[in-house]
């Protein structure tokens, strides 16, 4: 994975304020290697190697990190410096961080922020990079003093000679250290000696986010930049038949009107771009545009018909992802049998910052700026589409006003490049809230059929789920549609599946022109509701307490510790019967989360959430406050998808266009959320998504506990239960 890349090297030099008088080291992945290799910038330059992520320490002792992940609220801006500072033995205020420009090979294959992987994916390399720099500084000091390195140690930005207490600050050592070869092996600190990792230190991106200075995609301005909006076909597969722009062209500020085709998976979304000298003029002019769409040749779906078809589909044999034993035979013989159907809705991502992208196409250079989750993917995608070498394409990440999976896609960046290319000027393409909410891709809705048999002692003897839903993977060009959905077990704890003798997990892919896409926690966001609601139903069928019932199925030390914490923090044992408590446990992205909810009825008969308790086991972690924030946010997002919003379709178009129809939870809907984090030495798991799936089932299980009413279809109205 070595590649010469002058553009990115230049960007790197600029970003890291790299000079020969600084110690700059970083890691890269040699081809086929599992471990990363750490090099100094000088060596990397000689070898023509582009480093993945790197840190640079200058003569003033300041540390600069070039971040390899998008910052969309999940706290990468904090977690990465905390890891580096810990091993480097500097205080956090010495460390600053900048976005790395998109480069496909530079970050070991993927720079997409998704799958809750910021810490999970890179922690070892980041820790080793910090530790390596520390050891090189120690060695440089030892050389200067002419003493053995073993007599020296690093602390708070200094190297100290233990016998004499002589000190040298890092800034005085960087020049020497830069000439050394990074050691192959470095000792990482033990967790008990951490002073920075594991602490709830404040995020460095907070100050600019409370005074309006943080630059989001929509805030990017370039000299001579124009603004565009696009009237895209409201039907997912429609084409432009004719359009009349005679009035539009006379409107103030309007510069260009033309047709664009935006690629969405293997389809082209057609639209008319209106380019003006400010956003509002473009939006106004758009209102005067008349377009006739060609809407023939594809199905004009509506939600009711779509869900009927999904339910019909459940009768078909599924494409099996995972089977073991003999489900049918065991189920037939089971002491108790249960089956249930669950429904979950389509959802818009509805990031607070609507989609947007700035593009500037010049001769043989493409530059884009925007709220982008996957800069390396965008770079590769643009290179392929516009048949240009990768190094002529630069992708800049701004802050993202929410991402949730939507801003990892390539449609909006391609469209902006097409528009800039056409008008030969820098342009910002602004999606209105209506565009953002109606064009998709959406979270796919799903219908589940769950069946299980239980023995007399409450053990699940046979377990089967079938999911009818669109398969995201089937949308790509040349996709093999006979492939099963690889996410049907997502959300179920691995130890649960391992404890089953007879099981089957399968799916029936739904055919539909609606584009679908990752949405925070992906299929786990819907699986979790079905599977953990079903577990609650099984517990009641077995006449067991839901937590005890979980204990019988999740026989594992780590899961047991989590359940104990949940039991303790909720006061589960001493709660009154039928007092409105529900719980659920799910696992995704290598983290297990248990949540419990307490509901009550108000004097007016409406339901109210009194308490929400979450226990997160994400293994080794960096910043507990960021984890708490991510779990809180996941729960609020889950609350919306469970109780306040859904995207419907009629006549092949999305119905909900803005927040007056797509209702978001508001401040009064959300009580305090208690989040507890398990302490253990396990590998780090994700934190941005795993808190979402257990909330809806915990809430519905609580409602059942209070009212005896079982909710099997989301969303539902809390005021009408």
């Amino acid at each position, binding site marked *: 994975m070595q590649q010469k890349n002058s553009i990115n090297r230049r960007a790197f030099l600029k970003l890291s304020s790299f000079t020969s008088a600084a110690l700059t080291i970083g890691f890269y992945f040699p081809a086929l290697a599992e471990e990363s290799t750490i090099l100094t910038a000088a060596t990397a330059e000689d070898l023509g190697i582009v480093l993945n992520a790197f840190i640079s320490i200058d003569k003033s002792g300041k540390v600069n990190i070039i971040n390899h992940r998008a910052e*969309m*609220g*999940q*706290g990468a801006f904090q977690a990465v410096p905390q890891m580096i500072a810990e091993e480097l033995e500097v205080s956090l205020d010495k460390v600053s961080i900048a976005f790395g420009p998109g480069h496909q090979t530079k970050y070991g294959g993927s720079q997409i922020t998704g799958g809750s992987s910021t810490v999970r994916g890179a922690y070892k390399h980041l820790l080793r990079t910090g530790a390596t720099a520390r050891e090189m500084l120690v060695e440089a000091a030892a050389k200067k003093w002419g003493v053995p390195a073993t007599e020296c140690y690093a602390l708070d930005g200094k190297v100290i000679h233990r016998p004499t207490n002589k000190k040298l600050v890092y800034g005085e050592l960087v020049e020497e250290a830069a000439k050394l070869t990074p050691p192959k092996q470095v000792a990482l600190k033990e967790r008990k000696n951490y002073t920075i990792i594991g602490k709830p230190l*404040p*995020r460095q*991106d*907070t*100050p*600019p*986010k*409370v*005074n*309006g*200075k943080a*630059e*989001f995609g*929509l*805030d990017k*301005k370039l000299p001579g930049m124009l*603004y565009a909006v696009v009237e895209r076909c409201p039907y997912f597969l429609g084409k432009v038949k004719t359009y009349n722009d005679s009035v539009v062209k006379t409107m*103030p500020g309007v510069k260009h009107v033309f047709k664009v085709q935006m690629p969405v998976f293997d389809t082209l979304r057609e639209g008319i771009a209106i380019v003006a000298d*400010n*956003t*509002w003029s473009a*939006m*106004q002019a758009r209102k005067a545009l008349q377009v006739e769409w060609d809407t023939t040749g594809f199905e004009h779906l509506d939600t009711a018909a779509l869900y009927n078809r999904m339910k019909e589909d459940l009768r078909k044999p599924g494409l099996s992802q995972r089977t073991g034993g003999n489900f049918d035979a065991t189920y037939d013989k089971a002491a108790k049998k249960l089956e249930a159907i669950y429904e979950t809705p389509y959802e818009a991502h*509805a*990031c*607070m*910052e*609507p989609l947007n992208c700035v593009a500037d196409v010049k001769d043989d250079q493409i530059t884009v700026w925007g709220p982008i989750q996957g800069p390396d993917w965008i770079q590769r995608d643009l290179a392929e589409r516009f048949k240009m070498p990768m190094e002529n394409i630069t992708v800049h990440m701004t*802050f*993202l*006003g*929410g991402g*949730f999976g939507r801003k990892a896609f390539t449609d909006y960046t391609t469209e902006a490049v097409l528009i800039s290319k056409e008008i030969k000027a820098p342009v910002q393409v*602004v999606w*209105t*809230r209506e565009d953002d909410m109606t064009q998709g891709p959406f979270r796919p809705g799903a219908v589940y059929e769950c069946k299980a048999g239980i023995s007399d002692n409450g053990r699940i003897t046979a377990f089967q789920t079938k999911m009818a839903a669109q398969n995201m993977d089937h949308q790509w060009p040349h996709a093999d549609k006979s492939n099963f959905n690889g996410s049907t077990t997502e959300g179920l704890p691995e130890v649960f599946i391992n404890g089953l003798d007879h099981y089957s997990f399968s799916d029936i892919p739904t055919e539909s022109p609606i584009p679908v896409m990752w949405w925070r926690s992906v299929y786990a966001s819907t699986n979790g509701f079905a599977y953990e609601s079903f577990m609650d139903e099984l517990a009641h069928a077995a006449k067991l307490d839901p937590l005890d019932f979980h204990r019988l199925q999740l026989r594992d030390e780590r899961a047991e510790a989590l359940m104990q914490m949940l039991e303790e923090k909720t006061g589960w044992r001493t709660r009154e019967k039928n007092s409105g408590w529900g719980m659920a446990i799910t696992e995704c992205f290598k983290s297990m989360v248990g949540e419990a909810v307490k509901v009550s009825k108000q004097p007016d008969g409406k339901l109210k959430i009194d308490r929400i308790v979450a226990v997160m086991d994400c293994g080794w972690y960096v910043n507990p*406050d960021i984890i708490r*924030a*991510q779990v*809180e*946010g*996941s729960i*609020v*997002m889950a609350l919306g998808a469970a109780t306040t919003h859904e995207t419907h379709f009629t006549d092949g178009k999305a119905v909900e266009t*803005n*927040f*007056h129809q797509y209702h*978001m*939870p*508001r*401040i*009064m*809907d*959300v009580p*305090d*959320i208690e989040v507890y984090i398990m302490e253990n030495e396990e590998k780090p798991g994700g934190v941005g998504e795993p808190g979402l799936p257990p909330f809806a089932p915990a809430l519905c299980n609580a409602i059942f506990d209070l009212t005896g009413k079982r909710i099997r279809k989301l969303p539902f109205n809390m005021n009408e239960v």
Partner: protein
Amino acid sequence: MASYKLSINGAMHAVEADPKMPLLWVLRDLLNMTGTKYGCGMSQCGACTVHLNGNAIRSCSMPVSAVGNQKITTIEGISSDNTNAVQQAWIAEQVPQCGYCQSGQIMSAVALLKRNPNPTDRDIDLAMQGNICRCGTYPRIRKAIHKAAAMLKQPPAKSF
């Protein structure tokens, strides 16, 4: 097109704009003050909240021609160095996640505390219900407003 003189954060700004252009876009595109955000364009989300004579309004739905000589305050005018109590409380409680809604949240919170220095949870819920946060920072917003209220009651100590 018409000419306007707008009083924003204590300074006068001259702009040429269509009378119907919402204040939001005047601020963002004509004056380059991008702290005020676009979220919905129809008074549903609060991302564009600014103050008009100290009252929180949705700038996406206020035509520039309706502003007249009323005093506009935007997030940039709250303080650029985070010395305002609400900003400090926001930092202390680590409220922002993606941060996109936070200019609007802070503008609503500042207006609330000016009106009501001792808000209850209920007062906060009512004053802040027009501001959506997709990242779900609501519980922290509630805590931060209580904290800011407490800070404002202290005699002005040194900032932290």
